[in-house]
């Protein structure tokens, strides 16, 4: 195997592994508000996250940006909590600021935080030849994210079916809103616990 393929595989494995639950949970929180017909909007958000994530990873690994690992590890669950809360608070996206189109912006900003999370490891391990590992690892991560999102789409569709089956006729909320609230509550609770555990102060 050539080295690029090796590092792509490394990045891919890193994201789809259960150890990467914080990253997976963030992607789930991002995807929670979309249906299959909203695929274009979801793609914008994930692309923005990817861009932010790649920028910080490159800056941190090359030494252009130095970030305290403890702070980054704390901020990662905070971004997940914030995304979950945004899902809960904004019930009507057509009435949200900018018609709800701010979501790619904050996905990009939160991507900046997540990218820094990997940087310390890559920087330490590939200290003398970082360009190829960095590029390959990033490509692998993006491929892994697409895989996670596809899995999330299947999971969310399954949740929709369960809600449709269980929902009492007297409940006013649309099935999508029930799904968003249920998924976001779980995400917020889990990520809040991580934030407390990782509190650097």
């Amino acid at each position: 195997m050539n080295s690029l393929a090796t590092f792509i595989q490394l990045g891919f494995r890193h994201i789809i592994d259960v150890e990467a639950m914080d990253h997976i949970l963030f992607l789930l929180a991002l995807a929670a508000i979309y249906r299959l017909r909203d695929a274009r909007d979801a793609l914008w958000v994930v692309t923005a996250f990817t861009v932010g994530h790649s920028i910080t990873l490159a800056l941190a690994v090359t030494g252009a940006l130095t970030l305290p690992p403890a702070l980054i590890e704390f901020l990662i669950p905070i971004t997940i909590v914030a995304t979950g809360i945004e899902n809960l608070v904004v019930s009507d996206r057509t009435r949200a600021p900018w018609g709800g189109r701010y979501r790619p912006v904050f996905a990009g900003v939160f991507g900046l935080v997540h990218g820094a999370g990997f940087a310390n490891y890559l920087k330490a391990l590939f200290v003398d030849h970082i360009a190829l590992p960095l590029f390959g690892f990033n490509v692998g991560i993006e491929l892994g994210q697409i895989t996670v999102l596809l899995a999330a789409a299947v999971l969310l569709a399954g949740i929709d079916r369960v809600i449709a089956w269980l929902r009492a006729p007297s409940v006013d909320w649309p099935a999508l809103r029930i799904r968003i609230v249920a998924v976001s509550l779980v995400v917020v609770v889990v990520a809040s616990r991580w934030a407390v555990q990782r509190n650097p102060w």
Partner: protein
Amino acid sequence: MLVAAHSVGAPTASSAHPLHTTLTEVRVDATTHTVRLMVRVFADDFGTALARHTRVASPPVGRAWDDAATSYLGSAVAIADRANTPIALRSCGTRRTADLLWICLEGTTREVANEIRGRNTILCDLFDDQVNIVQLTSGTEKHSVLFTRGDGLKRLS
């Protein structure tokens, strides 16, 4: 001889979303028939693996660290020639930079090694998601092989 001081008090790079990976560079010197490995591994993880390997609560220190490291590496790292004949590896030193240990191992082949096989399952006993990269440098070309838990010898060249 391995350097025991490297095992003490290794700081963690992170604890939340760790990248469980080691990098091993393999170079073959055709003139001296020498195979040299440089293993890069995070010191804290390696110390934990040694403690587990020797069944003690905390990473060993001093001479005990040397012995534990030699024993552990002997069980986790192997190099063989084309006929799958093992090449005995000996330590050629250890150094530490920040969180990383650089462990040098070398062995001598009987013939000019145009085909090398290897195995590296360092830390696979510790982490389910451990992935070890082994890179064989031959001239300007690099060939990489990934090792995970349960892997046996694989062709490196």
